[in-house]
């Protein structure tokens, strides 16, 4: 089997003695870290003499279940019972742990092999210690439930009792370790409930916003309503006179809008007092360049740019102009989608304590190291003087890939001279987050008389400055159906943007899926072909398209597999009542292949009801934690339905017009249809689950609505007024 994506298997196992007689074992990312490791405090596995077994979770937990699934890999090969282990959250420390990011659905991909080897390495050392102690051949020993056994003599010993002796042995070479045969798995592949669930359901302090330090104050940072604006003048005395308020000061901007945007900091005994004092704040703003931004202005400018040649070429193959001219049939369409706000339910927050040159931070962040760098640069402190505790995040979705709240908290804590918990209001986050970029696609395709797509062009109008796409606003050259249509051109033009943007769950793909799979559906109908048959013809035979080992290589066979599975699950082709329909779509992103079928009915009023969603996903040969995996897929589907149906962030004179969940209506229980999930197990390395189920959902919904009504919706959020009978 080819390896569509190659993970480098570098790294060194390192081991030593825990104070008090236990064994620790870690995985150093490079030789330098391996040499320094004995001094490091953070390790992946610790086994104490009393048989307490601790597995450290290196990645930020944002609800993707990584604090459960990755330690399961270690526990499996260590050969302990899942109930025997305690999971501990690592500090942010890239030197010890390497990558610590909740993003790109990469943790499983990168760690499926290495974390198993960490468990296997510790097990091998414990077995070696027992063999030496008993004077027997290690090969005659077996393990299970945290015990080493010698069947012939009936001897057995707990891992804890062997830990001290094992700690004196050298760590094994990670490449030579034998791993379990998957058919012997007792933990991997079995549903496990989240390791923090008991704390969640009892209300124990767990999240960033729950952090409480002695002498701590609560801060809010009041920012200019126009994104990018700064304080011109502020009546601080009036604010300081408010009940419960202990301090107020102006924070000047430092760095870009992902660092310290600036505003008026208000420090109080409670969030309530700090937030309420804003009402008494008299402030004038220097609104800056952002005031020129408006959603209708963007739409008009996008239309103007669409009439011109693209400013840059993204991908070109064959002779698109010639093939288009010679096509039997040509189809043109314009697709559009809005800005979105990530809106995790826990508002942005961060707690910081500054003592001399040392900064200690408690942050719900998906990506701590860039935060450390930004704090160091902004405050002028050494990176090594910053300690970051990664707190459980009340949702991420990409919002916490940036760390501006971390920089703000550190800055404000230092200026205030007390430990500070900075809390953003919901309104702060909705009006000052980093947005999923809006976008406009101007598509044309040429078809021959057999339903083959012979030409495809797309002029993508996106956002960016000086020829550079804004974050998460770019189009990847290999976005499907690039490489599957012989004559192809994708080009882009950019609208200038002040407002910061950023990656949102399945970034870019969360919108491209809608565009490409919606347009492909139009082409199927224009060809008079069944939408599944048309897609299979477009994919062509099973083969790897692109270079072996590259992240964007495309396995047509895996795409075919999920497409056919989803169609079968849903009973594709069955007859439905009037104004009901099935829609299908597939998408590849984040190394995962997903397809889904959605069944809708559309009322005479235009209201759309989603009856059911069938999802087929291929993320490799092994699902690590089926319970968490299904939770991720179902969550992604409902998230995507919400993102298609009613959500949009709009700008007017540089101000975001939405402020809270009243005008940004996230899906609720009554919006959540049943979702049936099936995993297609293919012989590929396991990959991540938090994102790739999203992108095929919006187009499947639009395609189902077309099947039910004959109305093609090309704009998100969908306008149900167009669907009236």
């Amino acid at each position, binding site marked *: 089997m080819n390896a569509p994506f190659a993970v480098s298997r570098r790294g060194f196992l390192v081991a030593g003695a825990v104070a008090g007689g236990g064994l620790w074992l870690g995985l150093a990312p490079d030789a330098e870290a391996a040499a320094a490791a004995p001094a490091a405090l953070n390790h992946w596995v610790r086994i104490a003499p009393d048989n307490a077994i601790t597995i450290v979770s290196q990645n930020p937990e944002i609800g993707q279940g990584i604090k459960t699934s990755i330690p399961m890999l270690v526990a499996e090969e260590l050969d302990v019972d899942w109930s025997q282990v305690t999971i501990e959250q690592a500090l942010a420390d890239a030197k010890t742990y390497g990558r610590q990011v909740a993003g790109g659905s990469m943790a499983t991909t990168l760690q499926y092999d290495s974390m198993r080897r960490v468990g296997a390495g510790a097990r091998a050392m414990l077995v070696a210690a027992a063999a030496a102690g008993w004077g027997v051949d290690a090969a005659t020993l077996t393990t299970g439930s945290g015990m080493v056994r010698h069947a012939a003599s009936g001897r057995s010993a707990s891992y804890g009792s062997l830990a001290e002796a094992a700690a004196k042995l050298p760590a094994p070479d990670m490449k030579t370790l034998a791993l379990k045969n998957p058919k012997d798995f007792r933990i991997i592949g079995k549903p496990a409930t989240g390791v923090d669930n008991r704390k969640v*359901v009892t209300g124990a302090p767990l*999240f960033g916003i729950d952090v409480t330090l002695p002498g701590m104050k609560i801060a809010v940072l009041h920012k200019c309503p126009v994104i990018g604006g700064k304080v011109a003048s502020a009546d601080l005395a009036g604010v300081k006179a408010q009940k419960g308020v202990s301090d107020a000061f102006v924070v000047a901007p430092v760095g870009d809008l992902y660092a310290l945007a600036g505003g008026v900091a208000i420090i109080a005994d409670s969030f309530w007092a700090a937030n309420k004092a804003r009402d008494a704040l008299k402030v004038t703003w220097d609104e800056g360049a952002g005031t020129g931004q408006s959603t209708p202005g963007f739409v008009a400018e996008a239309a103007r740019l669409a009439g011109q040649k693209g400013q840059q070429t993204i991908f070109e193959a064959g002779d698109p102009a010639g093939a288009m001219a010679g096509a039997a049939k040509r189809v043109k369409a314009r697709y559009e989608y809005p800005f979105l706000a990530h809106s995790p339910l826990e508002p942005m927050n961060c707690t910081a304590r500054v003592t001399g040159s040392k900064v200690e931070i408690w942050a719900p962040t998906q990506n701590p190291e860039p935060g450390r760098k930004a704090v160091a640069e902004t405050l002028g402190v050494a990176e090594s003087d910053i300690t970051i505790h990664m707190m459980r995040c009340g949702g991420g979705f990409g919002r916490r890939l940036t760390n501006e709240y971390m920089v703000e908290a550190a800055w404000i804590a230092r200026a205030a001279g007390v430990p500070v918990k900075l809390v953003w209001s919901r309104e702060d986050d909705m009006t000052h987050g980093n947005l999923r970029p809006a976008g406009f696609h101007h598509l044309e395709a040429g078809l021959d008389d057999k339903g083959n797509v012979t030409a495809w062009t797309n002029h993508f109008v996106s956002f960016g400055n000086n020829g550079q796409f804004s974050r998460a606003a770019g189009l990847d050259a290999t976005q499907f159906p690039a490489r599957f249509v012989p004559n192809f051109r994708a080009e882009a033009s950019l609208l200038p943007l002040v407002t910061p943007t950023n990656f949102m769950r399945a970034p870019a793909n969360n919108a491209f899926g809608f565009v490409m799979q919606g347009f492909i559906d139009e082409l199927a109908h224009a060809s008079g072909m069944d939408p599944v048959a048309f897609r299979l013809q477009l994919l062509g035979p099973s083969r790897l398209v692109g270079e072996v080992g590259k992240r964007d290589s495309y396995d047509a066979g895996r795409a075919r597999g999920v497409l056919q599975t989803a169609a079968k699950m849903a009973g594709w082709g069955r007859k439905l009542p009037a104004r009901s329909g099935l829609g299908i779509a597939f998408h590849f992103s984040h190394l995962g292949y997903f397809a889904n079928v959605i069944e809708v009915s559309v009322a005479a009023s235009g209201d759309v009801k989603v009856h059911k969603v069938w999802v087929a996903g291929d993320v490799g040969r092994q699902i690590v934690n089926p319970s968490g995996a299904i939770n991720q897929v*179902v969550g992604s589907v409902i998230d995507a339905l919400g993102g298609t149906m009613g959500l949009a962030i709009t700008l007017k004179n540089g101000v975001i017009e939405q402020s809270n969940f009243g005008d940004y209506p996230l899906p609720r229980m009554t919006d959540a249809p049943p979702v049936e999930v099936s995993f297609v197990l293919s012989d590929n390395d396991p990959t991540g689950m938090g994102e790739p189920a999203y992108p095929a959902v919006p187009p499947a919904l639009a395609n189902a609505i077309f099947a039910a009504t004959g109305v093609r919706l090309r704009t998100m959020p969908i306008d149900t007024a167009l669907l009236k009978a």
Partner: protein
Amino acid sequence: MATELMVNGKIMRVEAEPDMPLLWVLRDVLGMTGTKFGCGAAYCGACTVHLDGAPVRACQTPLESVGKARITTIEGLAATPLGRKLQDAWVTLDVPQCGYCQAGQLMSAAALLAETPKPGDAEIDAAMNGNLCRCATYTRIKAAIKLAAGAKA
């Protein structure tokens, strides 16, 4: 101003302004952080607590309006068999993703089951629709309520 509150069966004295919402009295004055802040505007239900058994949004409940009502928060949910059943169902079915909304979900669910021991889908929807879950764990929430109620999912 000093006020006496009955929180999870204990009398607690708090110094706080009368218009301070109960959410912030709990979180910032009493240091009970189980009750969550999501929107501050009655949209999300993350802050749901019980006053004399009835679910209320703590972010919309000024301290002065609480009076002698018994307050139950997520930290006190395990005090009743029903509360424990719900918590166990949530763990068994692995409901949480990020978990942030779940305190509020559980408090709404507990109030529902106290009134309606075997709710149907429509009753669950009606009782729970004010509680947002950004991670969209709704199908499992519904299943867990049914499991706790002893009903078939």
